[in-house]
């Protein structure tokens, strides 16, 4: 057992209202610069939809993530040692600006300077790359709230495996449905971007697992961009270097939640420490598709287990971090309650951002004159929901419904349990039966309710003290420059040289 700590995240999709405040908070802090205009380290997508960049989940085209060889080994889809050389001048899976969008502003002067004409003058869109007037053809959130659209929603790669009827219902008027899917870098345990970088510029920080890109070592090969299946590394066309989400590490190191977490209106975001077993990581990443979710979950260790605590101390995890891991909301959602699931675990990068799948609107049954929501099978509406189970399974279960169904049933049971307590139109017998069937106890239901609905800032963000000094000491000797000049001289000053 080799214990490491990882700052992990949970996004509760049932609470996301799609307001994009997170995206704006991030943009204002980090990517409001030349060359970074098109970067959205945080973005919110509408599902079904094609997202940003367009159809990023279609790895047939983008070639991101890992694949298992017939021999059972993992290899990158986009590159390997041989192809690094053969594709050195042309990377075959590189998205173009058109797959993102051409960033633009408006020529507001035209509102004042336009010559007299028949119509009101408009602010003409102007490209922030070329400075020319452009026709806007796409934007960072072009299919926002556009589910049912024949261009974008119908090309969502997660629709694979759905029946014709399910597909047509998803775009049928008065039946179409969507939910929001906010995304940031997943700070994966097995990051494809780090593996693909020929310059060694990308690295996973030892003490908290944040994946960072060293701007001084980056040579702009852009292998990370095609390797990352989530398309969360971006190329800055002005500096010639790639950039990515840094999980606001300057904020995290000072005990604050990252900007997108801090600003979240729906309070959907949770941040906490997980302890995981790094020695079993490779084995877990090579699991069969149906076992991937459980294999990743099995990597996460119980921070209350004395053996785990001892092993964590041995590998240099600070006691304060272990304490934070014990109070981690992420540990509860992912490991204890099994409510939160990794996105597209089939890419085998072992993402450390987990999603609580959304409860979709119910297809109500009309009984005579009234709408009747209750049937004998209390969980019927999970299968009858407007969002087909297979769609969610493609997103959060590598195509397998079992983990998604489990999470939704438990959420459903907690709702009915709370309805019994607060509204009182459900019998205690019914509520208990539902909890039992959903593998949930009343105590657990209370805890889920508490952390979902009544959570405070301190409940949602359990950030350990940074201990940068210990992290640095792991990599270099703090005494290295002792007796040095202290003003940038690495070599000790000596006479006669």
């Amino acid at each position, binding site marked *: 057992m080799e214990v490491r700590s990882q700052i992990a995240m949970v996004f509760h999709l049932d609470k996301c209202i799609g307001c994009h405040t997170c995206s704006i908070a991030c943009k204002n802090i980090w990517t409001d610069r030349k060359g970074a205009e098109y970067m959205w380290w945080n973005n919110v997508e509408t599902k079904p939809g094609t997202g940003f960049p*367009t159809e990023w989940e279609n790895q047939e085209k983008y070639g991101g993530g890992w694949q298992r060889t017939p021999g059972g080994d993992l290899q990158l889809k986009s590159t390997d040692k041989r192809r690094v050389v053969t594709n050195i001048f042309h990377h*075959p899976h590189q998205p173009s600006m058109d797959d993102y969008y051409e960033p633009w502003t408006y020529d507001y002067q035209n509102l004042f300077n336009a010559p007299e004409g028949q119509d009101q003058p408009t602010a*003409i869109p102007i490209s922030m790359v070329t400075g020319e007037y452009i*026709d*806007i053809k796409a934007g960072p959130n072009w299919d926002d709230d556009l589910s049912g659209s024949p261009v974008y929603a119908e090309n969502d790669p997660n629709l694979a495996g759905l029946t014709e009827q399910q597909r047509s219902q998803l775009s049928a008027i008065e039946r179409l449905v969507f939910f929001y899917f906010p995304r940031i870098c997943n700070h994966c345990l097995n990051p494809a971007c780090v593996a693909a970088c020929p310059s060694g510029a990308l690295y996973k920080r030892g003490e908290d697992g944040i994946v960072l890109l060293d701007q001084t070592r980056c040579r702009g090969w852009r292998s990370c961009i095609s390797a990352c299946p989530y398309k969360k590394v971006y190329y800055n066309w002005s500096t010639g270097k790639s950039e990515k989400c840094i999980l606001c590490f300057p904020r995290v190191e000072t005990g604050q939640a990252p900007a997108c977490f801090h600003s979240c209106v729906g309070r959907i975001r949770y941040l906490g420490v997980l302890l995981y077993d790094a020695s079993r990581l490779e084995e877990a990443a090579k699991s069969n598709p149906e076992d991937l979710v459980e294999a990743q979950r099995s990597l996460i260790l119980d921070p209350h287990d004395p053996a785990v605590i001892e092993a964590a101390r041995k590998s240099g995890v600070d006691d304060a971090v272990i304490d934070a891991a014990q109070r981690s909301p992420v540990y509860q959602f992912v490991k204890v309650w099994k409510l939160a699931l990794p996105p597209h675990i089939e890419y085998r990068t072992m993402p450390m951002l987990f999603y609580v799948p959304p409860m979709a609107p119910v297809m109500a049954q009309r009984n005579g004159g009234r709408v009747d929501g209750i049937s004998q099978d209390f969980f019927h509406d999970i299968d009858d929901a407007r969002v087909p189970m297979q769609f969610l399974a493609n997103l959060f279960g590598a195509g397998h419904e079992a983990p998604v169904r489990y999470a939704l049933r438990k959420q459903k049971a907690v709702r009915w349990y709370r309805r019994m307590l607060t509204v009182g139109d459900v019998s205690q017998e019914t509520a208990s039966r539902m909890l039992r069937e959903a593998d949930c106890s009343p105590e657990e239901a209370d805890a889920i309710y508490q952390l979902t609905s009544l959570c405070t800032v301190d409940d949602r963000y359990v950030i350990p003290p940074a201990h940068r000094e210990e992290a640095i000491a792991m990599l270099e000797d703090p005494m290295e420059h002792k007796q040095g000049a202290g003003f940038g001289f690495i070599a000790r000053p000596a006479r006669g040289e």
Partner: protein
Amino acid sequence: MNAPFGRWWASALAAALALSVPGAARAQDATAYFKQNCVSCHTIGGGRLTGPDLKDVTVRRDHDWLLRYMPNPKALIDAGDPIAVQLFQEARGVLMPSLPGLTPDMADALISLMESESKLEKSQFVGVQVSDRPFTAQDIERGRAIMRGDIAQLAGGPPCLSCHTVRGVGALGGGRLGPDLTKVYERLQGRKGLSAWLSAPATTTMQSVFRDTPLDAEEILPVVAYLEEAARQGGEDSGFGRVTFLLLGLGGAVVLLAGMDGAWRKRFRAVRGPLVEEAGFGRAHTRGGIR
């Protein structure tokens, strides 16, 4: 002046300022100079090449006239000197070049050399003795091979084709750095002149290439045979090789690009654009925006 540095410095100064420095090495210098610069056109007692046989030239010509003529023949011809003009006509218009390093002092040394060599029974500058036997088909074939570099030269010199072209030598022709050699057999007045030239080429470029790797006498005959055949076939290089070369290059580029397009046909082109096109919204999107 005994130090090597001093000697070098002195000779450099002498050459630069054309000072008269009488020395023991003078005759030796003249011999080397004659070998390097004169024997491609002249013999001493070996008969006429491009230029006249220089045996007894000191008897035929005045010493002062020789001193005036040798460093700059063109000036004398331009000035209408009757002997110079006659020599020019005898050489069928081939002008004796003004040679580098032919200082008045060197000219004087050369005249002394020619005088003493003329008195010998057989001068060392009697010229290459090329066999008079008629050229055979094998000679021509072998000459062509040497020319093209199919057969390596004995001394390891570069094949003629790398700088020169000859009509009919190959589809792509030869190099364009040196002159076309199709008519060189006629220009250098036949077998003897051409052979002499090939044994010791007089131009700076050829010298620098062939000084250390001269053509063997056994190689000169076939090359001459081939060039004689080329001159007999007649006609200058038509430029056909140039066109072929261009067309081959263009064709090759097209084939290469087509091959690359085929090899990477599954490459990433675009995602969003085709998506919109397929859904039939392409035209609406490109109709032009609000101005």
